[in-house]
């Protein structure tokens, strides 16, 4: 990892985590509807974010460490 990729790859990792969070938030928890309660939105946001981080950490770990 060198040159511009030194910046692009971590940024892309953040992007992957964000889009996965958004997909889980809207697709699995369906928390984007206006009728959804505030507490459910907060819970769904945190749960989606945590799941996304765990999943991508696992994939990046496999990719970079080659286990």
């Amino acid at each position, binding site marked *: 990892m060198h040159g511009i990729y030194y910046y*692009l*790859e971590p940024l*892309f990792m953040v992007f*992957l985590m964000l*889009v996965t969070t*958004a*997909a889980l938030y*809207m*697709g699995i928890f369906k928390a984007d509807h206006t009728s959804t309660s505030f507490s459910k939105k907060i819970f769904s946001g945190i749960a989606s974010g945590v799941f996304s981080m765990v999943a991508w950490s696992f*994939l*990046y770990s*496999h*990719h*970079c460490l080659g286990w």
Partner: protein
Amino acid sequence: MNTISTATYDMNRSSIFSTLYSLKAALPGLLAMFFIAIFSNNLVGVPNPFTLQNLFAWLDGVIGPLNHQSFFQIMNANFVWNPLLMGLIIGNLFGVPNAWKRGLSYIHLMMPLGIIMLAPHFMIGHASKLGFMPILICVAAMFITATVTLYTGRLLKLDDRQTSIIAGGLSTGDPHAGVILMPLIKAKGGQVVGASACVILFGIIAMLILPLVGPLVGIPDKYFGLAAVTTVGNGAQSLFAAFGQSYEAGRYATWFDVGRHVIMPAGFIYVFVVMFIRKLKNKGNTNVHATGDIKTFPIWLMVFIFFWALACLHLFRQPAAHAIFNMVQWDFSMAAAALGLSLPLREIAHDGIKCFAVTCIAGCIRMVLLLAAILLCVKTGLLPA
């Protein structure tokens, strides 16, 4: 949009981007395309091993090589077909929510963008090693195939949009060239996938027939490689046919394949130009659908041709060309996912038999003409043994 609503829209919009949907409206569809893309292909930057591409590669290992070729390569599995297949399965099994449709409409932006970025992939100079006659045969094969296919489609009264897609796929040898022609011809998604499937199917038939015909015609192994490249179909199918003849023919097919590859853009531009002129000459004819409401030569196609010319002059450095091709894979993966999602299976099967008949007739005429031409060139010494 009527005059009043156009005026209101013009007053309210703040920038040229006002024509786009808001992020909130487009996000579900864009996310669907994105996730189908990253679970279909090994795209640069994504460390996801659970892809359809890897599954096919693993299955290829299980099946083993067929005449030195992978089964899924013969079936034309690539960065366009994989997401298309996955989108097709998801869309037809589970349906597509209305919330996705605005995002999926971004396919109309992504396709021209992908085609423009494809320009540095084709460097004509790479074919110069083949020599004048093989290049001439490759070029003639492409234009003759396209012309014969367009005439056959007209004779059999197949929809001109579908005929154009078959012409693009058969003449360039890559069935997915039809996807490139889609925004130019204004073809329906079902027509594109149906026509491309027919081209793949014909390629499989041709790759089995050619090694049987080869010994009867008496073309030497070296030029049987050239015949396989110009008469069969995609790269893997051509190599299957050539290796079916002999190892020598297969090695020469690998050598000659570049001649077919680098001139591909000329094939689909030719089909577009022919159909565009035909439409301009037949204004008011209800049977002429190809190129739809395109009134002038598309600017983005001029941009593509401009960049293709620059690429041929070697103005793109190779690392840049490779990096741009990675972006093409991203772009087409997402566009193909959207295409697959928005296609009911019955649309693909529409006019299927007629479409296949046009492909087979044009493909067989092409095969006979080229075998005769190559044999003649060998006998007269134009193609030295």
